[in-house]
């Protein structure tokens, strides 16, 4: 489409295509639309479209066509950059800019697109320094000083376009350039041009902020420049010397903090800049849109850090000005809803980014006012957040602001040593009290009250879905902060929580008793009003959550320590405490604490614990009185959650971990104390009671078994647990599969089994140990053997009773596997191995019962997952063999089977997913291996198994052999299955490339087909995996030097695929590395074929200029690596040249 031949014709064609695209859907057919789209696509791909585009821009009246012309110019400039004269690029840029200037009434989207083209030209030009940016700024500043709002808006658009084009590599237009290029452009830009933009913006804002009475048009210009200022202040300053990988990571970070380079010092330390933004906000704070920008600007300024500050005193000065400005901005105003989040962001950034030493260095009066202000805002936002909840607002601005401020508190008080002792106590008391108040019911609290103190209309019984998180997770951050503040003000908060909780439990007890009497007096009478109960449950719910977070931290893995504040608090008061009374209060959850003589001399932290135990006891007694229907499962969850958290930290406290220990603590729950024994017994009883009365509440049952696991997962605790008779009863009861335990859900039964096994590794004499295993593990085996060894098992295996028995056994096996630890793997592996062999038999028996087959595979998955990393060679072999046999049986029973029932596909999908998980687990042995050549099994085996009959590779390849034929294209549409499958294939190619050529023909072919399919028509993630698999395959070929093998032929085919992908198709730049590595290795292997590919590509070029450029580019590509060899250095050089190659000629070749 040359301008000379029928430019008018082209325009007519484009205009009518635009009409089709703009027409309402009902007016044009799909084909018409596609055709029209095609016209534009091929127009944009046409060669050197500059003349015709200019022509279009000057003559056409159709906006959409103008837009497309601008796009075409932008794409063509980048594509043909190396073919264009610098002067013509220069004049193109001038043309575009003038064009926009002369047409103030252009549609916004057309104008922005043209400016984008300008920005792209400027950016591309900065690479070869051919285009000078300065010219543009001169023009823009003239536009700004024109005073004409329309022109000023245009100037702002130009700056915005430049800014976003240079700002990051993800936001920029895809112009096919490398990360390094984007990075170095950005670095140049941020040192100079960015500051120019900022200065221009500041001037405009200053000018406007001086004006009274702005009209709407001026105010809209003002808003645009404010947004631009925000963009500059949110600039993610790229530090020098950041590698490509890090650039991407760096730029993906959200919430950019302002860290300007040193050259910005003068600009940002100028006090007028910060002042300006405070002034601006004051001026526009009632406009909620603009206020968001101005507050965000201030928040960015509050986050400033890094080399911009020459020394600490400069930083302190800056901070002092900031705090002063903030306080004078907030004081005396009524904060608007739209300001809450912005203001809390400023505070949060300031507290996070400035070191504590800075905070204490500002004038103390100023700092005091700041903390007072923070306290006041926190309480006030908290109350407003509660109101939002009552009104069920969609947009919870105060909740967000409250979260931010509570988080800031946590940061602030974490380094208490910088502040004088007790500095924060009064503030903490205020924030803590207001939190409690918002969460308690009237009269003490304000829960569900509207602003004027009226109870909100009756909350309807709304359905709560399982997907909704529990409050303890939903508000975990808030609770962590409140817990921390509670510790700081322990003297106030612990007694407060105790008295509130004791009071609510007493009322709950009374209320339940009244219900019971009512039921006894008139049995069967209608339902009772639960409103009072629900209010009490909700109060108790929050009190327990806060108590749990105050007394202990949540940790994963490591042993959580008793918070130092709590320890100090207990020690400080220990002289006023009577140990015996304390123990009596602790040990009497059935009584009110206040009824125990001398109860005021109880250790307060222990009394708080005992108030939770009292709650637990009231609950348990209610279940025994058949009042379970009236109880709240939520409260039940809160109680076991608390007990778990508390036990981890306090139970059998290890005195060695602390400098000083509270006497009441060590007397009440230290090692070898009656107190500890009593608590373990109490918790165990609670667990057993819960599992029987709450088996129908899945979450509560789950939290309960998790508590049980906590009790036994550490040996010191387990030692105490197994001394309880109840523990043995639980074990026996579970082994007998009697109700109620067997009506627990599968996952709960699994975890219960895990706990029972863990308990067996407590310290016992050998006789007790023998007895324990006799009662826990052996019944499982016995029952199982009894079932499967029945003579008529074949006939009765389908009976539901038998199936249930088998399913329960399989679940238990998964639980046993989950209990694996390095010190018990010997026993558990040997025990499970017997079962695994029997499970294979079951697989045969239940071959047409998919739900059982699925669970059997799961047992193998779990065993491999938990144990393979500890197994030495001969044990691994046993497991490999078992897995291999399992897969053989599965394959035999499923090949050639066709099912039509509804869930056939779903069942098969689940089987295959599990099998692949199993194979991946087995493979993981290759990189995670803790075994020390059967160290853990030493002495266990009569001589090593000498012949290595099966290897992981064999099992896995055999598995793949099974999976492949079953893996239909339909099944690959399940994304999780597809990803798992390709992960496995890539693993195999990377770990056992030498096995690939030995595969049976069919398997080899389908493997290669899978790779090709994955590379060409799956997601980019899969495509990358396949490319990664190619390199080791090609290397394998090179090593073997067999030019006849099928693998050699296959790699030749892949060379062409990868070549086309890299050179001819537009591909994701992230893929360049994986594809480049694959290409290089393939090129090494097939040098002649590669030359042919290049030759044929060149010979198809008509244009001699392009031919020459391409030929040069190809020469350069391989210059550093000829002849190509599998040498790392050469490979890296190739990859580097490849990037340049793609950047310079990639675009040329994609043209149709």
């Amino acid at each position, binding site marked *: 489409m040359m301008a000379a031949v029928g430019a008018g014709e082209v325009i007519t064609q484009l205009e009518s295509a635009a009409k089709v695209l703009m027409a309402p859907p009902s007016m044009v057919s799909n084909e018409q639309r596609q055709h029209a789209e095609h016209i534009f696509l091929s127009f944009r791909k046409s060669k050197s479209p500059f003349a015709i585009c200019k022509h279009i821009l000057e003559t056409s009246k159709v906006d959409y066509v103008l837009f497309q012309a601008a796009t075409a110019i932008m794409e063509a400039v980048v594509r043909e950059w190396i073919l264009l004269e610098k002067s013509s690029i220069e004049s193109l840029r001038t043309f575009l800019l003038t064009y926009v200037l002369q047409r103030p009434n252009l549609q916004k989207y057309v104008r922005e697109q043209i400016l984008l083209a300008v920005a792209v030209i400027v950016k591309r030009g900065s690479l070869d320094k051919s285009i000078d940016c300065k010219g543009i700024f001169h023009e823009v500043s003239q536009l700004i000083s024109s005073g004409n709002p329309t022109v000023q808006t245009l100037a702002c658009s130009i700056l915005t376009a430049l800014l976003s084009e240079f700002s990051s590599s993800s936001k920029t237009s895809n112009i096919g350039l490398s990360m390094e290029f984007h990075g170095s452009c950005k670095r140049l830009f941020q040192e100079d041009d960015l500051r120019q933009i900022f200065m221009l913006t500041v001037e405009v804002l200053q000018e406007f902020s001086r004006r009274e009475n702005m009209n709407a048009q001026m105010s809209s210009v003002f808003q645009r420049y404010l947004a631009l200022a925000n963009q500059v202040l949110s600039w993610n300053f790229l530090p020098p010397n950041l590698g490509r990988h890090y650039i991407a990571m760096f730029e993906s970070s959200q919430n950019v903090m302002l860290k300007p380079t040193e050259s910005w010092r003068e600009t940002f330390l100028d006090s007028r800049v910060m002042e300006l933004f405070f002034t601006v906000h004051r001026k526009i704070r009632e406009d909620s849109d603009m206020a968001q920008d101005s507050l965000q600007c201030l928040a960015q300024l509050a986050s400033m850090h890094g080399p911009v500050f020459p020394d600490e005193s400069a930083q302190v000065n800056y901070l002092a000005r900031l705090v002063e400005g903030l306080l004078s901005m907030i004081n005396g105003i009524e904060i608007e809803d739209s300001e809450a989040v912005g203001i809390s962001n400023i505070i949060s950034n300031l507290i996070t980014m400035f070191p504590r030493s800075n905070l204490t260095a500002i004038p103390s009066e100023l700092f005091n006012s700041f903390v007072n202000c923070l306290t006041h805002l926190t309480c006030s936002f908290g109350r407003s957040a509660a109101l939002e909840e009552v009104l069920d607002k969609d947009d919870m601005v105060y909740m967000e602001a409250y979260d931010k401020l509570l988080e800031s508190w946590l940061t602030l008080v974490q380094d208490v040593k910088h502040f004088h002792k007790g500095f924060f106590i009064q503030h903490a008391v205020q924030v803590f009290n207001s939190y409690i108040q918002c969460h308690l019911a009237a009269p003490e609290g304000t829960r569900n009250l509207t602003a004027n103190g009226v109870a909100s209309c009756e909350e309807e019984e709304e359905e709560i879905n399982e997907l909704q998180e529990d409050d303890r997770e939903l508000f975990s951050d808030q609770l962590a902060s409140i817990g921390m503040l509670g510790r700081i003000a322990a003297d106030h908060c612990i007694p407060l929580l105790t008295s509130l909780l004791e009071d609510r439990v007493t009322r709950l007890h009374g209320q339940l008793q009244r219900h019971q009497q009512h039921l006894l007096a008139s049995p069967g009478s209608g339902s009772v009003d639960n409103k009072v109960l629900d209010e009490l449950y909700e109060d108790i719910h929050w009190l327990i959550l806060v108590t749990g977070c105050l007394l202990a931290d949540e940790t994963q893995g490591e042993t959580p320590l008793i918070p130092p504040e709590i320890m100090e608090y207990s020690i400080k008061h220990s002289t006023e405490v009577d140990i015996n009374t304390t123990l009596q209060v602790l040990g009497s959850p059935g009584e009110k604490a206040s009824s125990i003589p001398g109860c005021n001399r109880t250790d307060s932290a222990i009394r708080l614990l005992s108030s939770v135990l009292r709650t637990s006891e009231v609950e348990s007694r209610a279940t025994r009185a058949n009042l379970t229907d009236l109880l709240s499962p939520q409260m039940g969850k809160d109680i076991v959650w608390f007990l778990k958290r508390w036990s981890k930290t306090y139970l059998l406290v290890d005195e060695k971990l602390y400098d000083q220990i509270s006497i009441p603590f060590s007397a009440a729950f230290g090692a070898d104390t009656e107190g500890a024994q009593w608590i373990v017994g109490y918790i165990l009883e609670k667990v057993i009671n819960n599992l029987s009365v709450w088996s129908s*509440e899945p979450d509560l049952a789950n939290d309960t078994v998790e508590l049980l696991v906590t009790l036994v997962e550490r040996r010191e605790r387990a030692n105490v647990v197994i001394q309880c008779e109840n523990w043995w009863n639980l074990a026996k009861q579970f082994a007998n599969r009697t109700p109620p335990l067997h009506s627990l*859900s599968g996952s709960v039964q699994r975890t219960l089994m895990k706990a029972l096994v863990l308990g067996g590794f407590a310290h016992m004499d050998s006789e007790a140990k023998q007895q324990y295993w006799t009662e826990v593990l052996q019944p499982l085996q016995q029952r199982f053997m009894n079932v499967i060894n029945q003579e008529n098992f074949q006939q009765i295996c389908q009976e539901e009773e038998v199936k249930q028995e088998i399913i329960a056994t399989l679940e238990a096996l998964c639980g046993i596997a989950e209990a694996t630890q390095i010190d018990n793997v010997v026993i558990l592996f040997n025990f499970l191995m017997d079962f695994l062999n029997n499970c294979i038999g079951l697989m045969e028996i239940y071959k047409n019962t998919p739900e059982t087959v699925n669970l059997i595979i799961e047992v193998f998955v779990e065993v491999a997952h938990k144990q393979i990393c500890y197994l030495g060679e001969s044990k691994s072999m046993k497991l490999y063999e078992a897995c291999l046999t399992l897969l053989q049986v599965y394959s035999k029973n499923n090949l050639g089977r066709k099912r*039509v029932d509804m*869930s056939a596909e779903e069942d098969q999908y689940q089987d295959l997913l599990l099998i692949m998980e199993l194979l991946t687990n087995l493979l993981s042995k290759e990189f995670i291996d803790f075994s020390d050549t059967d160290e853990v099994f030493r002495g266990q085996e009569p001589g090593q198994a000498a012949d290595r009959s099966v290897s992981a590779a064999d099992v896995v390849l055999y598995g793949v052999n099974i999976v492949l034929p079953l893996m239909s294209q339909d099944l690959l549409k399940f994304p999780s299955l597809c990803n798992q499958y390709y992960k496995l294939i890539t693993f195999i190619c990377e770990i056992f490339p030498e096995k690939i050529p030995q595969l049976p023909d069919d398997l080899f072919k389908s493997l290669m087909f899978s790779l090709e399919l994955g590379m060409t028509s799956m997601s980019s993630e899969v495509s990358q995996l396949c490319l990664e698999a190619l390199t080791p395959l090609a290397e394998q070929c090179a090593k073997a030097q067999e030019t006849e093998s099928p693998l050699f032929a296959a790699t030749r085919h892949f060379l062409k695929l990868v070549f086309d992908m890299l050179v001819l198709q537009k591909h994701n730049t992230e893929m360049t590395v994986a594809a480049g590595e694959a290409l290089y290795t393939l090129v090494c292997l097939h040098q002649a074929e590669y030359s042919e590919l290049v030759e044929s590509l060149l010979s198809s070029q008509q244009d001699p200029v392009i031919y020459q450029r391409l030929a040069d580019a190809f020469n350069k590509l391989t210059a550093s690596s000829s002849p190509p060899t599998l040498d790392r250095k050469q490979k890296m050089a190739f990859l580097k040249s490849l990037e340049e190659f793609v950047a310079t000629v990639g675009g040329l070749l994609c043209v149709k």
Partner: protein
Amino acid sequence: MADADLDFQTGDAGASATFPMQCSALRKNGFVVLKGRPCKIVEMSTSKTGKHGHAKVHMIGIDIFSGKKHEDICPSTHNMDVPNIKRNDYQLIGIQDGYLSLLQDSGEVREDLRLPEGELGKEMESKYEAGEEMLITVLSAMNEECAVAIKAMTK
């Protein structure tokens, strides 16, 4: 593999069609009776009425014979009926008048099962005519039976 024991003609002599189970112990992929029909549970979720309410279980099941979807919601303490499901493999030895002739382990031949409609039925017919030996899986529950799968016999 068939150890034909003539004393045990079928195993289900005294087995009842369904048995009760607490709702919370049901599992996804398991079976339950919904609206009087044996169903495979394809989805299960719990909910509660209000924060302090008790759990209710919401189940979606698919009728194992008709493929129709059924739903139910009930308190998790309730007992639900679970159907006794059996699957048996028989060798196909003939097709007559739209009925299958199946060889039982006992050596007897049953001829009371319809050739299923649709693709599976057609495949049975064509494979049978081609002389391929195959096993037919018959699914039975609550006094209803249906052929649901074929599998080529391993020689």
